């Protein structure tokens, strides 16, 4: 074998091992969700037929449907509002930029450095004083506008052709209509990336809902799944089914928007 071939062999071997390690825990989760807990413990790795039993046990233990609905509602509303607000801001910062706005933008970027724990307690006090504990608005308010998304949309607005905009202005299109009818359709991949990031972050968020969702009826999916690990005996089949259900929405979003996500990131990194 030539040196090049040996190197090639090691490269593929390395990639296959890394891929296997990446995928295996997820495969194990899926297979465990369809097996009896005792079988999972004894090391059974092939999918079984215990799925329905696990499901029955799960809905008896926790109100999964309600938690799933809550998470979905919070994440969907946050994603929608956040995309509108952040893209408006990013567009405003770039298209109408002047010295004052550029300075403001660099101040806003500093907010990226503010860790969430450092604002958590005052935010909790604000939200609870406003009576928004256990509400969607309480969930979404702190993360509607994020420096990262504003930066991303500002970056993409840079590539929005100016002459088209001028032409639209001469045709008498208002600035708002230029934004909604021309900017949004052309920046689809940026929106898709922003959507993926925002939806995933919203769905996965754990600390903030744990702080403000004090009522069982407004708990989110990750909170309910975490609740299942309390107690002495773990039913692995049931637990992994819950973990699987908690993973599905982000996995679906990820697969649908994977390409756009990578493109959008490329835009942000440039």
């Amino acid at each position: 074998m030539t040196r090049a071939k040996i190197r090639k062999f090691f490269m593929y071997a390395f990639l296959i091992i890394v891929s296997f390690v990446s995928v295996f825990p997820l495969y194990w989760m899926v297979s465990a969700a369809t097996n009896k807990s005792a079988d999972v413990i004894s090391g059974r790795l092939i999918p079984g037929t215990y799925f329905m039993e696990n499901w029955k046990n799960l809905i008896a233990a926790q109100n999964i449907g309600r938690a799933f609905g809550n998470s979905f509602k919070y994440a969907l509303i946050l994603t929608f509002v956040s995309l509108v607000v952040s893209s408006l801001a990013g567009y405003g910062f770039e298209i109408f930029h002047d010295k004052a706005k550029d300075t403001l933008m660099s101040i806003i970027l500093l907010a990226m450095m503010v860790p969430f724990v450092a604002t958590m307690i005052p935010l909790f006090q604000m939200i609870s004083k406003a009576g928004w504990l256990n509400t969607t608005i309480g969930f979404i308010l702190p993360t509607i506008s994020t420096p990262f998304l504003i930066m991303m949309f500002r970056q993409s607005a840079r590539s929005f052709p100016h002459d088209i905009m001028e032409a639209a202005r001469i045709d008498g299109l208002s600035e708002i209509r230029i934004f909604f009818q021309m900017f949004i359709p052309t920046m689809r991949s940026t929106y898709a990336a922003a959507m993926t990031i925002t939806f995933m972050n919203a769905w996965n968020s754990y600390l903030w809902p744990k702080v403000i969702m004090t009522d069982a009826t407004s708990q989110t999916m990750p909170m309910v799944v975490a609740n299942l690990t309390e107690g002495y005996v773990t039913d692995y089949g049931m637990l992994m089914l819950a973990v699987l259900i908690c993973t599905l929405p982000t996995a679906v979003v990820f697969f649908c928007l994977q390409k756009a996500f990578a493109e959008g990131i490329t835009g942000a990194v440039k």
Partner: protein
Amino acid sequence: MSKPKKMTLSKKQNLMGWFFLLPGALLIFIMSFLPMFRALLLSFKSGVGANMKWCGISNYIRMFQDTVFVQSIKNTFLYLLIQVPIMLVFALILASILNNKDLKFKGLFRTMIFLPCATSLVAYAIIFRSLFANNGLVNLLFVKLGILDQPYAFLTNTTSARIVIVIALLWRWTGYNMVFYLSGLQNIEYSVYEAAKIDGASAVQSFFKITVPLLKPTILLTAIMSTNGTLQLFDESVNLTKGGPANTSITMSHYIYDMSFKYVPNFGYSAAMSFLILILVAILAFLQMKVGDKRD
């Protein structure tokens, strides 16, 4: 409101710009800068609920005498110093392998390595907790292979509990950083690599002489993001090891949460601890940017 009779076009545009960015900018000030300022004020107070009193810097003195908090700082930095460099180097190597034009199944490999990012933080923490449990798959495998005589309590021994957290973090985030590097590599002309190859440069040489210098801005970005994320670790500490055994794997955010919402709420003290995290994030980001600039 009296408007000037004739607004010039540029003035009108200027106002329009403010109209566009105002909601987003205001929200960041109200939801990020204002609470940060209030946390600073709060950190000089003590007491519960409405009975908060000024207490000078006693919260700050207390936190360095609080053995659990000092432990949580040490743990967080341990994760930071071990996990972040390994992860970034690993992600960089994977990205430069996957950037190879002649590679087959490139898309498939990329998708599989990025797949862990599709799981929620709580979900993967629980998966790893189950895999490393006393009756989990890892123990089963090690016993069967004869590496261990009997199951080892990975999660209730200090060193192994910390290692499990590092392994879990590597699993979850390496692919994420790899995608950033792959995106950055797209901006490097592939012909540069081909030219280097013709000139006799080895793969290792072109990695250090081409990939690393040209990706520096991206590496800096990922380093800052990972540092920021690691200093705020919460979900893994809560769900994977529950901070245990005896708080030896607890992270700063986890301890702050417990102090604020689990035990008798002590917002003043928690705010002081959270402010320390803020200062640490700022210092580390500043240092990283300095280092990033210097090598130019």
